[in-house]
């Protein structure tokens, strides 16, 4: 970002805004969307709808936090959707089998962290591109899941297991998770040595090594963290409905990657923030819901969403070109 060098002549506020350009664009889009759609159809602003937008998509935002870290470190994970399907199935199976809920929640999350760290180790030490390794993981997880379950649905889970449906103080718990994890991750990325090492490794691996960072260990660490976020996302996904379909949610990895990228994480690594990806995930959820309230045929939802993604990307490229 060129704003760093020009920072001296600008006010603190300007510098702050400059560093978060993409995030602010996404945030303003969300606000504009609420105002316009709420004006056309006030029911869009009802508690029920806003709750369902935020709670129903929190797991995507949380997965996008981990994905953003991965992309900032210069890597990618196309197996995240399959992993969420696997986590949900393990959690549901354990819960139905009568294990205490804390086991049903924590075992799949641990599984996700271990597998993801293993993927990270493979990427870090063999130098095989992460897209290739995670493409392989996608096949392994997806195939393993379907052969293990035959696509049987899981239902009759105990009510105390359904964490995503709990509503402390009237707000869905998924929203608490989304907000808390976004803030924690943002602070972590900005103020800890490890967080800054992730940016350094993504920006230039050899320079990071010269600066005393162990790039291999950082990559494994960031994959393990990503596994943690994916795990939490998987548990929320598993508990938001009364059944778990024990299949891989179609195109989920693309939704998560898109949220990260639109939120301002450069696919080339080294820049971006996790706040942006959460905002982008919310924006998509709002757009999807808004189109329904504006009476756009459900069949055209994805086309409109695709067009908006394209417009956002082009606007972002134009903004970056101006900034240079």
């Amino acid at each position: 970002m060129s704003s760093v060098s020009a920072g001296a002549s600008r006010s603190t506020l300007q510098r702050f805004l400059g560093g978060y350009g993409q995030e602010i664009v996404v945030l303003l889009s969300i606000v504009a969307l609420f105002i316009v759609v709420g004006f056309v159809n006030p029911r869009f602003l009802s508690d029920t709808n806003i709750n369902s937008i935020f709670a129903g998509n929190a797991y995507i935002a949380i997965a996008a936090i981990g994905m953003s870290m991965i992309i900032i470190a210069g890597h990618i994970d196309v197996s995240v959707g399959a992993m969420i399907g696997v986590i949900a199935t393990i959690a549901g199976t354990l819960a139905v089998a009568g294990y205490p809920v804390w086991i049903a929640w924590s075992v799949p999350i641990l599984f996700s962290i271990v597998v993801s760290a293993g993927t990270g180790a493979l990427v870090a030490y063999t130098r095989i591109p992460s897209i290739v390794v995670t493409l392989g993981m996608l096949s392994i997880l997806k195939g393993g899941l379907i052969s293990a379950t035959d696509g049987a649905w899981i239902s009759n889970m105990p009510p105390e297991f359904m964490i995503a449906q709990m509503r402390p103080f009237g707000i869905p718990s998924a929203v608490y998770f989304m907000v808390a994890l976004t803030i924690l991750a943002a602070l972590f990325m900005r103020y800890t040595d490890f967080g800054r090492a992730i940016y350094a490794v993504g920006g230039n691996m050899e320079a990071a090594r010269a600066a005393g960072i162990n790039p291999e260990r950082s990559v494994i660490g960031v994959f393990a963290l990503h596994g943690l976020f994916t795990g939490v996302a998987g548990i929320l996904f598993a508990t938001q409905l009364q059944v778990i379909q024990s299949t891989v949610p179609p195109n989920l990895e693309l939704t998560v990657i898109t949220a990260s990228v639109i939120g301002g994480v450069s696919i080339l690594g080294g820049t971006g923030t996790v706040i942006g990806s959460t905002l982008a995930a919310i924006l998509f959820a709002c757009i999807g819901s808004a189109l329904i309230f504006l009476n756009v045929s459900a069949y055209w939802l994805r086309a409109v969403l695709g067009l908006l993604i394209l417009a956002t990307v082009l606007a972002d490229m134009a903004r970056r070109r101006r900034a240079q």
Partner: protein
Amino acid sequence: MTASKLLRHETILAVLTIIALAVLASLSDKFFTAENLLNQGRLMSEVGLVALAMTFVIVTGGIDLSVGSILGLTAILLGVFWKNLGLPLPLAIAGALACGTFAGWVNGFIITRFSVPPLIATLATLALYRGLAEGISEARSVRGYPEWFYVFGQGEILGVPFQLWILGIATVVSAVILGLTPFGRATYAIGANETAARFSGIRVHATKLWIYTAAGFVSALAAVIFVSRVTTTRSDMGTGLELDVITGVVLGGTSIFGGRGTIIGTVLGLILIQALKNGLALSGVKGDGTIVVIGLVLIGAILIGAMFDKNRGG
């Protein structure tokens, strides 16, 4: 770069493929029959056609995630042009092919004109094209094509499936273009170092535009074959095709960073995947268990390649 170095991954892959074929043949006597092998060739034609163009795309250092969506969109347009607009079927096919090709050109245009990274550009068009297919079709399928149309997907010439001829011709053509022509050398040069390629007078943007347009065309061609093979048109056709295609290309030794890869490698990669899918299914492994094996083979093959050549990847 010497020929022996270029062929190293392909050699490993060829050996792997032969071992796999031998093992699979010993596991089931239905596997190594002409009938079964030709039928498998039929099934891999659609992925194979797209993989040929994807090899060029990845050799330039790019990627095209929208191929499956282009396939779906073309299939829907074919049905709509013919059934809803009442065009004669040959004209409907030509129109659908033109639209698919145009969709590929749009990818190339966004990537070259606005310098959007290919991963992001085609991520957006993946959603857009699939969305158009869903919107236009409104979840209705089109059936009842005339008998002659099924030749593309179900016919035979000299006992070999029709689409295998197309795949064979396309393979030879793309191997010649990538291996022996200035266009092919430009493709490698762009993938190795785009800036250097530009300063050497290579028309980087024009080359990329051609390649993404070609990817659109073969995806559209695959759509026509697909519709003809399964005799119906649905908007979810080709979902996930991009990952199958990329798996084949990468297994074939094409570096995801660009600058390295061959058509021979891609074809070997495709054959290995298809043989594993079919052979394991015949030997009693459940359908989805084979996907696990393919994932393991993908990682394993790249790992072996990396051990033989410490300089690759990275």
